[in-house]
């Protein structure tokens, strides 16, 4: 059955309860975004990402009735993918391998002082590899909020819904995460 493309995620989710083909459209909408998100969380192997995504979508389908329309569907879907990724890290005892594909600029700018000279900042710019390595080494709670905020562009409220923590905790985690990350590059950023 073909879905009108203008349907919102929430409307498709409702339809998917009675028509599982509709669920395919949601998978298509989120597959690439979530795969990139998992990469940023440190799931470095493509096959692992695919397994996690498959499990996440199956779980989403099974729990469609628990979707709270007060939330954005994307937050709910990111939450499921995030929880699957955490289960994966726990089960495999795997170390995260963060891969950044030229997307660390927003984070680097954020880490710099407000009054920093942009030219000097550009000169001492960290390589994506260095930043990825540092991100892989910070505690996962910090990596999660940094990835959601600076790579996924999520608002504090959305991050709160994805990670299931209060908004205040999101701000605290972000503040601490930036401080920890800055401390890893004392030559580039003042603490």
């Amino acid at each position, binding site marked *: 059955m073909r879905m009108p493309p203008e349907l919102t995620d929430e409307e498709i989710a409702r339809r998917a*309860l009675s028509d*599982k*083909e509709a*669920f*395919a459209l949601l*998978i*298509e909408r989120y*597959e690439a975004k979530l795969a990139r998100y998992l990469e940023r969380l440190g799931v470095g192997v493509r096959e692992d990402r*695919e397994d996690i*995504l*498959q499990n996440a*979508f*199956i779980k989403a*389908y*099974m*729990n*469609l*009735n*628990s979707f*709270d329309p*007060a939330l954005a569907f994307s937050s709910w879907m990111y939450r499921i993918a995030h929880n699957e990724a955490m289960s994966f890290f726990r089960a495999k005892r795997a170390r995260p391998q963060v891969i950044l594909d030229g997307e660390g600029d927003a984070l680097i700018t954020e880490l710099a002082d407000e009054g920093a000279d942009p030219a000097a900042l550009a000169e001492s710019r960290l390589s994506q590899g260095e930043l990825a390595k540092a991100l892989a080494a910070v505690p996962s709670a910090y990596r999660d909020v940094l990835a959601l905020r600076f790579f996924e562009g999520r608002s504090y409220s959305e991050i*709160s819904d994805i990670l*299931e*923590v*209060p*908004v*205040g*905790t999101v701000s605290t985690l972000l503040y601490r995460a930036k401080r920890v990350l800055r401390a890893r590059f004392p030559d580039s950023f003042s603490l």
Partner: protein
Amino acid sequence: MTAPEQPTTTLAARVLARIARDRIVPRPRWEFIFKNYFFWTLGALAVALGAFAFSAALFEVENAGWRLAVATHPDFLTFLLSAAPFLWALALALFVLIGYANIRRTNRGYRYPLALIAFGAVITSVALGSALYAFGLGGELEEAVGDHPPFYRPILVAERSWWLAPERGLLGGSVVSVAPGISSFTLRDFAGGVWRVDGSDLSAPDLTVVARGGIVRVVGVPAAATSSVFHACFVFPWEIRGAQPEPVPSPLAAISSTSERSAPAARSEECKGIRPYQQLRTLEEAGL
């Protein structure tokens, strides 16, 4: 033997194939609604139990006999250790934590910070607990728990034991009868022992308490270690706060407001020698 699964190209196709193969269906909505209400109910129940704990704690604090601690205990720390409502404070903290843990597991429970939920749970428990205390349920609960926990003693039981120490000059019990002029009175202590209490050293406030009857606390000097005669220096009423109201006993005697014995200087040297004499005098004057 089943045919090997055909390789599928897209993730959507693979997911739908697995849904079909494993006959996966969405879990019914009522399960999630039930789970949500279940955790809200457990959370509310924990807060309600916290309210009971608070009412019992309040009853314990109100009836611990703080002002007479100078007479019953060697120092304030000893008194605090025996009278502070540790069990109920612990129970309140535990129920608040359980309430938080359950509310946190509801659909949107994660949105509320720990401090907000804990503060809300404490405030609710305190407000409800105060109401329960006002209705006399704090005392009922304290009595009901009674001696069940091996390390716990209800405050009234503890206090009765503090006032069942005539060798230390502390005697509590019911005034059974009063001699003319309240020169002496008969008191049945908390263990059932009957005492003749000499009231010759009592001042007007003490005499008023004795004349009113009921349960009293007497600070004095035992006549001899083995006798059942007690020399009273001070008499304080024993009022149980936060309990179900009991019928007021008929007065045992009437006293004149211009009693000659109201002057504290009239007390004998025997009474002036008791340990917290000055503090007890102050309490008496303050009208405990």
